[in-house]
C-alpha cells in the first residue's frame, strides 16, 4: 500500500476509508473530516480512532466522571489532580505520594500471564511518569467460580503474571483482593495499583513546551505489539465464542522496565526533562498528542527515526503499536548529551524523534513526507462525548423485594459447622497460595502486607513516616444498590487504612462494568460514580485519578458492577501502627460498632445461592467518627490489635486474628448466628489490655462498643462451641491449594 500523505489526502478527498473497522462511528469520522477540513490520512485516521476509543477518550464516562472535579472537596493535600497520568498528594515532610489503579481485564482473559504482567507494567510507568519512585503494588482481582475449568486456566496465569512482573521490578506487593463470582467467568478483572514517592519539587508533568526542545523516545524498540489493541480490546464486547477480535497480545519485559525505571529516576534527579509521558494504550499516538496538547501545541516528529523491532511496520502501525517499556521525554538541547549518557549507562535505547515547535499543530513525517498534520488537542482531549441512555434495571426492584431464607446456626454443632463452612469458602479462605508468589519484602520498607487490612510502607527511615493503602469493592452490594455500594466500598477502604492507624487522605478508583451501550449497565455506572463523588465530598477526600473499564460482559450477561476503590492514608510513625492480630493471652476482645441483621449481599447468603434483599445503607458521619477513633486509639496506644469486619463478618475476622499468631480466643455472643455472619459495615474487632480506656475512647467519639470475649488457649471457643485452631487452620488454609496446586 502506498504512503498516504497529507498531500495525497487533499488530492483524493473521496477515497473511502475503513473507519468503521477501526471502531469509529460515521459521525465521528465526519467530525475528523470537519476538524481537518479534508479526509484524514490513514495515519491520522489511526491516531484518531485509537485516541477516540472508549478506553482512551472516556467518551461514555466523561459526563459522569466530571462530578469528581465538580463535587471535589477543596483539599490542600492535593498537589496534582485528575487529568495527569496519576494524581499526587502531599503527605508531609516535603514528601509527595502518587497512586493509581488501572485495569487490564480483557488482555488477561486472552493471555492471562502476559495480560496481567503488562497490566502491572503499565500502571508502574504511569507512576514513574509523575517523577516518583514506585514503591509498592497491589492487585485487586476477580474470577469466575473457583472450581470452574476456565478459572483453573486463568487464575494461575494471572497470579504468575502479576508476580512475575512485579517481583522482577523489585516492587513489594502489599495487598489486593481475590473474589470469585459466576459473572466474572469469561470476564476476569485484573486491576493493578501502584504507589510512588517523591519530593514536592520532583513532580513531573506530561507537557511539551519550549520551541526547539527535543522529543526523545527511550526504552524498548517498537514492534507490532497489540496494534489496535487499545481500541479493539477495550471497545469490543466478547462474543460467546470468546473475544470478538483477538488482538496480537503484548508481551512484557520486566527487566527492560526495571532498567527503564532506574534510568528515568537518574535522569529526573539530574533534572534533565521538561516534560515526560509514558507510552501505554495508544502508544505514540497518545504520547505525542498528549505531550503536545499539554504544552503549547506545536510538535514535529520524524516517525522514521523510531527504532523498530520489526522493520516491516507501516507508519500507521508504528503510531498504534503498544510495545511495552517505552517512555517519551521533552529535553532541552543543552541537556541532551547528559540525557543520552545516562541512557547509555543503563543500556537503554534513546532516540531523538522530533522537536517542540511554535504553532499549534502536531506534524509527523515519514521519510520527509507529511503524513500527520493535526491540532493535537483534537486528538487527545476533544474526543466524542456521549450522553448514553440510562435506565434503572428492572432487577433492582425485584431483588429488593426478595426476603432471604438462610440457615441460622444455634446449637454448638451448627455454630462450629457454620464457621468452618464460611472460612473454607474460596472468597474467605486463606489467600497465601497466591500472595506467597509475590515478593513482599523487597525495598525493605514493608510494614504491612497481606493479610493485614491495608498495605503499609515506610517512606522515611529516619522520621518513620509512612503510607497505608487499601482497595475495596463489594460487588454484591453494588449489584443491589450501586449508589450505596460505591459509598460502602469507599468507607471500607478508608476503614481498612484507619484500622492500622493511618489517616485517610486521598482516593483513586477503577470502575469495572459491563457494556455502556446497555442502559441498565450505564445506570449502574452513573449511580456508582454519583455515590462515590457524594461520599468523597462528605468525607473531604479528593479523587486523584482512576480508570474505567467497560464491556466486561459475555453476550448480554454483564459482570456485577465492580467499582474498586483505593484509599491512601498517611501515618506519622509506622512503628506505632496497629497490627491485625495479637500474640498474647488474657487480652480483652471488644467489638466496636453495632451489629444489625445485614445478610443481603453477605458471603453467607452467597454460599446459599441468594443474591436478593436490601443492601446496608452507609452512615458516613458515624464512619468518620470511627476512623478518628481508630487513629486516636493508635496514637494513644489503646489497641494491641485491630481488624476490620467485612466479607465473612466476625466469623472470618476472629479466624484470621487467631490463626495469624496461633493464639486462640473465647467469645460469648448473645445472638451467635447474627453476630458471627452478619456483615453490617462499620465494625472493628479490637484486642486491648485496658478495657476502660477503650470504653472511654469510644464514648468520646460516641461509637457503640461491647466486650465479646478474651484471647488465649489453642482453640476458638464461641459460646459452647469449641474449634481447635488446628482444625480451624485446616479448613481455612486448604481450600486454594486444593483448587489450584
Amino acid at each position: 500500500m502506498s504512503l498516504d500523505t497529507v498531500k495525497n489526502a487533499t488530492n483524493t478527498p473521496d477515497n473511502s476509508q475503513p473507519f468503521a473497522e477501526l471502531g469509529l462511528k460515521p459521525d465521528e469520522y465526519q467530525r475528523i473530516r470537519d476538524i481537518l477540513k479534508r479526509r484524514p490520512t490513514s495515519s491520522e485516521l489511526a491516531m484518531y480512532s485509537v485516541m477516540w476509543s472508549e478506553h482512551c477518550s472516556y467518551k461514555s464516562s466523561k459526563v459522569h466522571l466530571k462530578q469528581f472535579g465538580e463535587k471535589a472537596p477543596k483539599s490542600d493535600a492535593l498537589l496534582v489532580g485528575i487529568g495527569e497520568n496519576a494524581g499526587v498528594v502531599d503527605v508531609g515532610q516535603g514528601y509527595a505520594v502518587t497512586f493509581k489503579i488501572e485495569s487490564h481485564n480483557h488482555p488477561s482473559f486472552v493471555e492471562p500471564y502476559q495480560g496481567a504482567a503488562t497490566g502491572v507494567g503499565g500502571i508502574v510507568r504511569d507512576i514513574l511518569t509523575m517523577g516518583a519512585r514506585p514503591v509498592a503494588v497491589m492487585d485487586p482481582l476477580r474470577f469466575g467460580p473457583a472450581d470452574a475449568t476456565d478459572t483453573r486456566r486463568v487464575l494461575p496465569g494471572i497470579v504468575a503474571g502479576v508476580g512475575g512482573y512485579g517481583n522482577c521490578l523489585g516492587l513489594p506487593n502489599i495487598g489486593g483482593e481475590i473474589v470469585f463470582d459466576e459473572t466474572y467467568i469469561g470476564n476476569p478483572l485484573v486491576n493493578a495499583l501502584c504507589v510512588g514517592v517523591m519530593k514536592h519539587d520532583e513532580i513531573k508533568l506530561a507537557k511539551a513546551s519550549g520551541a526547539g526542545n527535543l522529543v526523545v523516545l527511550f526504552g524498548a524498540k517498537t514492534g507490532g505489539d497489540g496494534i489496535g489493541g487499545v481500541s479493539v480490546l477495550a471497545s469490543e464486547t466478547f462474543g460467546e465464542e470468546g473475544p470478538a477480535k483477538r488482538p496480537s497480545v503484548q508481551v512484557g519485559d520486566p527487566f527492560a522496565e526495571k532498567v527503564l525505571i532506574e534510568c528515568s529516576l537518574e535522569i529526573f534527579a539530574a533534572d534533565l526533562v521538561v516534560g515526560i509521558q509514558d507510552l501505554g494504550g495508544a502508544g505514540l499516538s497518545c504520547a505525542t498528542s498528549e505531550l503536545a496538547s499539554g504544552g503549547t501545541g506545536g510538535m514535529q516528529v520524524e516517525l522514521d527515526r523510531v527504532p523498530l523491532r520489526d522493520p516491516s511496520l507501516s507508519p500507521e502501525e508504528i503510531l498504534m503499536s503498544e510495545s511495552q517499556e517505552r517512555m517519551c521525554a521533552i529535553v532541552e538541547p543543552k541537556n541532551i548529551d547528559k540525557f543520552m549518557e545516562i541512557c547509555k549507562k543503563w543500556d537503554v535505547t534513546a532516540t531523538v524523534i522530533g522537536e517542540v515547535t511554535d504553532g499549534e499543530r502536531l506534524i509527523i513525517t515519514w521519510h520527509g513526507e507529511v503524513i500527520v498534520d493535526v491540532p493535537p488537542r483534537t486528538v487527545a482531549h476533544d474526543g466524542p462525548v456521549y450522553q448514553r441512555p440510562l435506565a434503572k434495571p428492572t432487577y433492582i426492584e425485584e431483588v429488593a423485594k426478595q426476603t432471604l431464607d438462610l440457615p441460622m446456626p444455634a446449637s454448638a454443632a451448627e455454630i462450629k459447622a457454620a464457621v468452618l463452612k464460611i472460612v473454607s469458602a474460596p472468597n474467605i479462605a486463606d489467600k497465601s497460595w497466591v500472595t506467597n508468589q509475590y515478593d513482599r519484602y523487597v525495598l525493605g520498607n514493608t510494614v504491612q502486607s497481606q493479610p493485614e487490612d491495608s498495605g503499609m510502607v515506610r517512606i522515611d527511615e529516619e522520621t518513620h513516616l509512612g503510607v497505608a493503602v487499601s482497595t475495596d469493592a463489594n460487588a454484591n452490594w453494588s449489584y443491589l444498590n450501586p449508589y450505596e455500594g460505591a459509598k460502602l466500598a469507599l468507607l471500607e477502604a478508608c476503614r481498612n487504612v484507619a484500622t492500622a492507624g493511618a489517616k485517610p487522605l486521598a482516593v483513586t478508583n477503577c470502575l469495572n462494568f459491563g457494556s455502556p451501550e446497555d442502559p441498565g449497565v450505564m445506570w449502574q455506572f452513573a449511580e456508582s460514580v454519583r455515590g462515590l463523588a457524594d461520599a468523597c465530598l462528605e468525607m473531604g477526600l479528593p479523587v486523584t485519578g482512576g480508570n474505567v473499564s467497560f464491556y466486561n460482559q459475555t453476550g448480554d450477561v454483564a459482570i456485577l458492577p465492580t467499582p474498586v476503590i483505593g484509599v491512601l492514608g498517611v501515618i506519622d510513625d509506622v512503628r506505632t501502627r496497629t497490627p491485625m492480630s495479637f500474640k498474647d493471652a488474657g487480652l480483652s476482645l471488644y467489638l466496636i460498632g453495632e451489629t444489625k441483621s445485614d445478610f443481603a449481599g453477605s458471603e453467607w447468603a452467597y454460599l446459599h445461592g441468594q443474591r436478593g434483599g436490601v443492601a446496608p445503607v452507609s452512615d458516613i458521619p458515624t464512619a468518620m467518627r470511627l476512623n478518628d477513633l481508630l487513629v486516636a486509639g493508635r496514637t494513644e496506644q489503646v489497641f494491641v490489635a485491630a481488624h476490620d469486619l467485612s466479607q465473612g463478618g466476625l466469623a472470618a475476622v476472629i479466624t484470621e486474628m487467631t490463626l495469624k499468631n496461633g493464639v486462640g480466643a473465647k467469645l460469648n455472643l448473645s445472638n451467635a448466628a447474627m453476630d458471627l455472619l452478619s456483615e453490617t459495615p462499620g465494625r472493628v474487632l479490637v484486642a486491648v489490655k485496658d478495657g476502660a480506656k477503650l470504653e472511654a475512647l469510644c464514648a468520646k467519639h460516641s461509637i457503640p462498643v461491647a466486650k465479646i470475649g478474651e484471647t488465649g488457649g489453642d482453640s476458638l471457643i464461641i459460646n459452647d462451641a469449641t474449634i481447635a485452631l488446628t482444625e480451624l487452620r485446616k479448613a481455612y488454609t486448604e481450600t486454594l491449594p486444593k483448587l489450584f496446586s
Partner: protein
Amino acid sequence: MRIGVVTFPGSLDDRDAQRAVREAGGEAVALWHGDSSINNVDAVILPGGFSYGDYLRCGAISRFAPVMTDVIAKAKEGLPVLGICNGFQILCESHLLPGALTRNKDLHFICKDQELEIVNNKTLWTSDYQVGQHITIPLKNGEGSFQCDDNTLNMLESEGRIVARYVGENPNGSRNLIAGITNERGNIVGLMPHPEHAIEDLCGPGTDGLGFFTSILKAMVK
C-alpha cells in the same frame, strides 16, 4: 570496614544489603557491574534480584560483568564474598561455588519466612551464629532448588561445607535441604534466603539475619 555491594542491571535487594551492612556497623560501598575493579573494599556482597531479568539462567549473564573478573580473582585469593539469592546463583555460574540453582520444585516463586539451621559457623560470614542454631529469615525466589551430582554432594557433606539447611518441609526441592554452602576456605558463602531482610523487627521477621553482617565485620577486625 568497607563492604562493597555490587549492583547489576536488575539487582533488587542491593539497597537492602547496603542498609544491613550499615545496621551491623560497617561502611557500605556501592559497586557497579561495569566497574573494572572493586576498588579495595574489604569484602563484597552480590545481592539478590533478577539481574538481566534472570533470562537464560539466573546469574548466567551477570557472571560475565566486568566487575566480576576482579571479584572472581580476589575471591580465589581469599576476599570474603557473600552471594545472596541471585548472588548465590552468580557465584555458582562463576564456578566459585559448586552446583547450581534450578526451578523450585512446585515451579512457583516462593516468598515466605523460612526457618533455617546453621550447620557451619566456621565461615567468615557465619561466625556469630551457633552450630545448630535455628534462625528465621525471608526466602523469596523462583529458582532456589540447589542441585548437583552425587560426588559433589558427598564432598560438600563430608567437608562440612553446607552452611545452612532448611528446617521442616523442603521449600523448593534442594538436595539435602541445602540453603547455603561455602568454598573450601570459608571466605565465599552462597545463601538462597535473604538475611538482609531480617535485620529489624518492623520490616521483616525479626533480626535473625544480622549475624551474617556482624560476623564479617568481626572477622575483618581480627
